[in-house]
């Protein structure tokens, strides 16, 4: 990985980055992309959510999956942290609990890539209003 130390360095790499990103992103609208949301409240962070988020970012990139990784607040599943919510366009959101790197790997390989459901899904009994 190229090392940079300033904004000027960053500017120099712009063209290179742009071509990399264009190769990967097939869809412009966020609704058309897979969303991976890591719960990042005190409970999640204390249970290792930062490590899981970094794992997700790195592995999705490595495996060429076009997804947006973001963070959410506490969903109320503090007992099952770290939790990860995955939204595949056209499907209901699914929340996975007790996510470690092994589980995160399964989420990517089985659920995101193949649509297979896994153990460890937290039943969600609410509908998002927004």
């Amino acid at each position, binding site marked *: 990985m190229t090392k*940079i130390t300033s904004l000027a360095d960053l500017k120099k790499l712009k063209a290179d980055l742009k071509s990399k990103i264009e190769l990967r992103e097939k869809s412009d609208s966020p609704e058309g992309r897979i969303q991976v949301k890591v719960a990042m409240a*005190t409970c999640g*962070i204390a249970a290792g959510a*930062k490590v899981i988020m970094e794992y997700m970012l790195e592995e999705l990139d490595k495996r060429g999956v076009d997804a947006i990784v973001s963070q959410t*607040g506490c969903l*109320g599943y503090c007992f099952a942290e770290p939790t990860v919510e995955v939204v595949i366009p056209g499907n209901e959101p699914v929340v996975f609990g007790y996510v470690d790197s092994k589980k995160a790997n399964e989420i990517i390989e089985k659920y995101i890539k193949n649509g297979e459901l896994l153990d460890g899904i937290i039943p969600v009994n609410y509908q998002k209003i927004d």
Partner: protein
Amino acid sequence: MAGKSGKSMKDISLHILDLAQNCLTAGATIVTILLEECLQDNIFQVSIADNGKGIAADVLPRVADPYFTTRKTRKVGMGLPLLKQNAEATGGTFQISSEVGVGTRICAVFQHNHFDRPPLGDIAGVVVLLVGANPEIRFVYTHRTQTGNYTFDTAEVQEALDGLPLNDYNVMQLLKGMIKANINALKSQ
């Protein structure tokens, strides 16, 4: 990475990640993080300020009470009490001020050389995660030591990147490297 697989609030950067989440929940669009290290005065100070919705005056004195939470909005919980406890364990202080409709400011002071002061941890990683996960929010992170300052500002980076997404993994890795190099340069001077 803190301790065993990065679990629990063992370092200051994880507290910052946690506090920033409060700012986002409060609807902030600008989050300012300031870290000041002064070996001469033996101070390690963390301040975080936002322009979110603020905390009502009657609620404010209770936010550092672990048994108090606003539940519905999940604005507070264990996060602030843990930070307060960690700061006070080093003989430091914890302060919070807020105004409804204006924003909230939190300041935790640790004794720099105290045995119980948590290490800073992976602050570059935390800043980049926050920026990448919330590209629409402006984060301004300043690290100040006796030898100088380093400031990372989402707005400046966005300008330099000219429309490239901040939530791309390659971009995030570059930014992380940039922050790390600058903080290391501050420390080695």
